[in-house]
């Protein structure tokens, strides 16, 4: 219907969340907005699946959560990348690039 919008490939949500958080700590809604905006409204982030993903990352110790005050003075749960999370981001970024590079090579074939 919206034509230009894309569903996220399996497993990339974690990578996008880690990337978004690498810039600054953010709350869930902020992450959702940021990804939407930065992808020039191309990526459709399923908002409902954002939170299970955040909790999974928290469990693995890649992000840390704490309660803080949001930009419009409301209590919100902020997520922040940990050192382990930063390493994980680097790892996943590298894997993503290898994957897309390989896919591109195949597509450009003959």
């Amino acid at each position, binding site marked *: 219907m919206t034509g230009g919008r894309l569903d996220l490939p399996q497993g990339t949500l974690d990578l996008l969340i880690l990337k978004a958080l690498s810039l600054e700590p953010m709350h869930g*809604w902020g992450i959702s907005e940021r990804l939407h905006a930065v992808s020039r409204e191309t990526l459709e982030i399923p908002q*409902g699946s954002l*939170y299970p993903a955040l*909790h999974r990352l*928290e469990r693995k*110790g890649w992000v840390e959560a704490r309660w803080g005050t949001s930009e419009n003075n409301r209590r*919100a749960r902020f997520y922040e990348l940990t050192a*382990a999370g930063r390493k994980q981001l680097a790892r996943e970024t590298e894997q993503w690039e290898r994957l897309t590079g390989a896919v591109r090579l195949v597509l450009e074939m003959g």
Partner: protein
Amino acid sequence: MLSELWSEVRYRARALFRRGEMERELDAELRHHLEREAEKYEREGVPPEEARRRARRAFGRVSRAKEAARAARGTAFLESVVRDVRVAARRWRSRPAFAALVVAILALGIGATSGIFSLVDGILLRPLPYPRPDRLVRLRQAYPAIGLDTWALSDQNVAMYRDEVRGLASFAAWGRRGMTLERDGRPRRLEVARVTGDFFRVLGVDPALGRAFGRSEDTPGQPARVAVLSSGLWKSEFGGRASVVGSTIDLDGRPTRVLGVMPPGFAYPGPETQAWVPLGLDPTDRYGWYLTGVGRLAPGATLDEVRRDSRAAMWRWTKTMPGLFHGVKPADAGITTLVTPVRDAITGDAKRPLEVLQAAVLLILLIAVADIALLFANRAARRGREMAMQRALGATGGRIARQLLTESLVLALAGGGLGIVLAFGLVHVATHTAAVSLPRLSDVGVSWRVVAFTFATSVAAGLGFGLAPVATLLRRRPTASLAGAGRDEAGAATRRLNGALIATQLALAAVLLISAGLALRSFRNLTGTRLGFEPEGVSMVALPLPAARYDDDTSVVRTTSEIARRVRAVPGVSEAAISWRLPFGGNYNTDGYVVEGRPPPSGTGVETQTAQLAVGPGYFRTLGIPLLYGRDFDGRDRPGAAPVTIVDRALASRYWKGADALGQRIQLTGDTTTWFTIVGVVGSVRDESPAVAPMPHAYFPFALAPTRRAMLTVRTEGKPGPVLAAVRRAVSAVEPGIPLDDVRPLTDWVGRSLDTQRIIELLLGAFALLAALLASVGIYGVMSLYVTDRRREFGVRLAIGAEPRGLVRMVLGQGMTLAAVGVGAGLVGALLASRWLGSLLYGVSPTDPLTYGALAAALLAVAAGSAWLPARRAARSDPMAALRTD
């Protein structure tokens, strides 16, 4: 990697234990998201209602997001378990009677089992606290032809085994002795083991403090004045001070140097041993059989080899003593050595009773498990409809099964936990009751092995009880149960299984009841046995005289006679006497004897054994032993007078009638020069245990055979307390060096020989009653199930005019048929079991018809009672109500 793992653990722990907090956080977080999303739309000019709707649409289903977030916590399984347990707990709270019954049955079954197994583990199974305990053997001898089933070792025997048996890497011997420890003018009686120089080397245990003594201190006939203390004595008497080692103590009036202190738990020859001193083994001493050998097998040597070699050594030795053995052929006379693993020697008498108790508790556990299976089957039948409903509403079979399993596991674990508490109680009572004199009690505790066993049992039981009804339920079609038809469908197979369980339970209960009944009758016989003396009102005082000041017979006789004289004068004392020992006092001397003018039986050269002891005037009166013919010892029997003896009826009646024994003469094999003239005949006494027939006794005047370790026997009138205080003062006035901490009534001593038996019979009786109770619960359960299943049928029968009494008869008949089958099988089982009880029985036939008949009848009566309650319920079925239940 590790930090990741740690993070997982921390997170999940929080998720599990602070679940409420995390849920609130999740709610707040999602609310925040939805509000911000809605505000975004509002800013675009969307009205608030519509903005909120759009926000929710963009988010997707909130409940699914929450579920997914919870799943992401990784605790879903655990949480559902917690939920199941909560549901189960709620269910049991609403049915407290059933839950309590199941928990109680399990707790009793598991508690009794764990308690008894802990005892068995500590006493029979756990290795002795010595290195390579399986290589340790105890050595004694036997000479059955003259009535010596066990025959102690003489000094020369010990040296012989030590030097001649190759299979023994090391060999030592010990004898017990009471000694007096005097500190600050206060004498105290000690249980001392006199041991040969190799003793500590054989056992392989070093003192915890200081050093032990060795062969160099064990000089023949003149042992060094040194001692090794037990840990217990060191703590109680010397305050656990290390400086005691190397100091000098006063032992039997002689300065003795303390060499070392043994570690706690070192309890050989027995837990009562408080100190060890060198014996002074004299290999030239051929007579005086008072020692027990203990040896360590050489590497590679077998028990059989050692048995063979030590017997050969013994036989060679008899040839060096022609005076004693009169050309006896050792093989014909049955002379042999008895080599027993030390563990068997220590646990010896306790083994069979413990095995019997173990078997009893296993039967109880079986009955209990059958009970619970029946109770759960009963419940499952009643819950059939409820579960059919759950299934119809979409619960999977697995989900229902899990809930059922959780329910039974909750009860099983509760029962198991309570059972462990009971086991601790049982073990505490067994180890802390003075009356229990089982061996190795210090090694007994509830062990982790038993706890593991208990938990495994309860978990297995829980799974089993949970699964049985699940299987039947899942087989049924839900619609059938909902339609009501399912209720009557308990099924012939289930009913047959229930019947078999009941019959088995009753059979097991019958075996236990009858075994316990036989054992209890034996015990009554034992306590009712006439001992031949009157222990009531008699107290005994050990009178060890300090060796240093009493080195000749005259002084011993003078002092002991004076003590007896003064004690007799104490108000409240009706009689008092001196003797070597007292009945039930253990260690009696025995000897072969020859009767003048009667050739001894061929082969042995002597008559069988007679117990011999020296007693002072008044001994028989004090103990209440009747003087049948002749006279008591008196002032005439002094050194230099003609040797005389008083024999008991057990000896006299072998050769003479009544008073004919007087004036006859006998000789003891230890002293072939003296003939003793019989001047009196007294009644026989049972001396070892009420179960052992009286042994012949020959008494000699104490004045002619005095000992520094005499006993004073006092018969008092009225309350013994104040009288005994005066007796103590009288004794101390004559000889202050005598320790008086061990004055006690003779009944104590006599009773003690039966204490272990009493406890075991008490436990067995309690277990038997428990078994009967549990079996009656089983019958009640099955008959209730039967009545519930057929309520409709009963209702219809009553509606069409059946007599209620007829229904009662029918239900009772059903129950009693099962009971009769079970009890019948139990009678056969009991016949087999009673043969195995063997040595536990005394004065009662293993097939005693009275015991069998009475207990079988009692069990049938109990069964009838338990079947009657449901039967009455059947008869009172309201026809309308029964029909309406659909």
